């Protein structure tokens, strides 16, 4: 009887609990579609033999297929400059041209000899020249050592905003990573010469982006944070690993005798390129060197010294990746060399000593590595094997067809 009473009490209580529990579930189920409907697909950087395994992907901006795709559209959309008139469009791709290894290139119809400038301003009706020539965007996802010629953009940088360009010193306007370069490009007078508000409003006004922002970030809201993150995702997706040299390393291609001779010169102290440009398959160490270009240095120059304060960094700049070097002229931060031949001649017999020269420039007292004509031709032949034709033709990185008229490239307008 006692058992029966207990059971008689327990059963209804249990049923109430079950029903209440079910009721709770059903309430949650009603909310589930809203909470969990945002499920973007992770974007995976290919795991390629010999390539770095540590990727520069911030924890607050994981790569997704939807984010990369939105970033691709924004990368090519000249309305990011806040303008809609044809002669005032500027996108990332206006300067970073795929067929030129994502640099302007010597053949650029808008930027003669690869010298870029911003949209017209009152002070500069033809556009203010950008201070330095371009750096390649490819393989940025593998770079852990700062961005820009002097590495000013890096994770330990605590600066925020820019008073000159009316950008507030708030946390989203940092100088830490690829995301930072988006606001810097939008607001710089020598680039898009816009404001954050104007550019965000311009993108917000384009109906097709609603669905793309929702797919990438869960809602249709357009804001600066999402714009910068998606463009950074697209830039990180641009990886180059299919040059002839890379295929040679993977035993998928052979070098000609002349290319092999150039390879052996490059990877030896005879031409001695590899200490700065060949430590990894990225064809750069991403380190900073004074490479014996000059005898004296302008104290106002924004070289590596302006970041570190170390006198040994005076006149030092990043050693850029040589992948696609055939396409990325002019060379050096100031574009002083227009051809591969000029570059090779410089390292062969054009070095000049200063007290700040990096010790890896060990031939500086001999003015260079002193290559003969055959060596120079071989070295050039090897450098040409660094072109990744698959990258520069890949539709994965190309301008979306519906944006061609909006991307601000003189060649397609």
């Amino acid at each position: 009887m006692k058992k029966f009473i207990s059971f008689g009490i327990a059963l209804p209580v249990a049923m109430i609990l079950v029903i209440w529990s079910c009721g709770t579930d059903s309430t949650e189920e009603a909310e589930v579609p809203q909470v969990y409907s945002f499920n973007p697909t992770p974007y995976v950087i290919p795991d390629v033999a010999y390539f770095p395994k540590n990727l520069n992907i911030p924890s607050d901006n994981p790569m997704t297929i939807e984010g990369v795709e939105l970033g691709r559209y924004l990368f090519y959309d000249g309305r990011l400059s806040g303008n809609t008139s044809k002669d005032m469009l500027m996108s990332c791709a206006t300067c970073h041209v795929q067929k030129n290894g994502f640099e302007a290139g010597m053949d650029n119809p808008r930027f003669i000899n690869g010298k870029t400038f911003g949209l017209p301003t009152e002070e500069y009706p033809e556009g203010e020249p950008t201070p330095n020539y371009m750096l390649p965007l490819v393989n940025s996802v593998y770079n852990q050592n700062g961005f820009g010629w002097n590495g000013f953009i890096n994770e330990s940088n605590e600066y925020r905003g820019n008073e000159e360009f009316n950008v507030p010193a708030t946390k989203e306007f940092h100088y830490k990573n690829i995301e930072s370069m988006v606001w810097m490009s939008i607001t710089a007078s020598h680039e898009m010469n816009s404001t954050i508000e104007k550019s965000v409003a311009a993108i917000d006004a384009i109906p097709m982006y609603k669905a793309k922002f929702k797919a990438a970030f869960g809602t249709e809201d357009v804001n600066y944070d999402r714009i910068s993150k998606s463009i950074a995702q697209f830039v990180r997706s641009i990886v180059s690993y299919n040059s002839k040299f890379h295929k040679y390393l993977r035993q998928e291609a052979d070098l000609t005798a002349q290319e092999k001779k150039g390879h052996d010169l490059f990877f030896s102290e005879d031409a001695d390129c590899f200490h700065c440009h060949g430590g990894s398959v990225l064809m750069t160490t991403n380190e900073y060197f004074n490479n014996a270009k000059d005898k004296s240095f302008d104290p106002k120059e924004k070289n590596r010294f302006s970041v570190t304060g170390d006198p040994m960094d005076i006149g030092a700049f990043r050693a850029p990746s040589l992948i696609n070097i055939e396409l990325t002229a002019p060379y050096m931060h100031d574009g002083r060399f227009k051809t591969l031949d000029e570059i090779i001649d410089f390292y062969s017999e054009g070095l000049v000593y200063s007290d700040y020269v990096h010790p890896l420039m060990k031939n500086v007292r001999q003015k260079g590595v002193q290559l003969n004509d055959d060596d120079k031709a071989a070295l050039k032949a090897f450098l040409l094997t660094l072109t990744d034709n698959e990258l520069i033709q890949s539709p994965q990185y190309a301008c979306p067809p519906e944006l061609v008229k909006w991307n601000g490239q003189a060649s397609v307008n």
Partner: protein
Amino acid sequence: MLKFQFILFVFGVFIIFSSCTKNDDQDNEVKSGKLVFNFEHFANGEELSYDQMIYTNAAGNQYEVSEIQWFISDITLHGKDGSKLLLDPEKFAHYIDTNIPETFTWSISDKIPAGEYQSISMTFGIRGEKNKPYMFTDPPESNMLWPMNLGGDQGGYHYMKLNGFWKNKDNQREPFNFHLGVGQERDADNNVIGFVQNWFETELPNSAFSIEKNETKSITIRMNVDKWWDQPNIYNHDEHGGKIMQNQNAMRMGVENGKNVFSLGKMTSIVK
């Protein structure tokens, strides 16, 4: 009843054995310590000062040091009974870079059995069979690549890059790259016909030590930079110039001197 007693007996035995096993584990746990190696760079008996032309080597060359990047590997403890304990065999090699202070410490992941050890030995560089090209995919280690055309398939990485300047015979400040790695055998036409493994093992002088259970011992390994150019070979930068990766004779001199380069610095107990 007998069956019940048997089950009780088996259960009791199980409890006792499992209890013993646990005690053994605990004993092993408490009878070991940890080792942390630190690295420092000296010249003429004092801590190295960088980028200052204040040193003179045995050949009379004035010199300054800009940076040193090098690999130590296969640190081994030698017991009094002749036993050897290879430390951190999975990692096996540690990269040290004077530009990156974080590299000045190698915390050994192994538990070190408590007891007395007669000596510590190390390998300068990386043994050939472990020195595989492109095994390091990420910087900074990947930047130490020693190209295959100079080192074959057992010479993947520099043992050391020691970069600086010396006052040459014309009294000019000239860069030198004292880079050590696999050397080349060459024929009369200077073609590479073989490779020379230049890594070496060295026993650290006066490196006997003991470690107690639960102790973390910090041991400092010191590179005495001036010794690279001192004994037994007097190395003259004017003679060998700024680059030696393809000069086995110069590298051989450095490697022979290298056996006198390393000594023991401070040895302290961090946690007890």
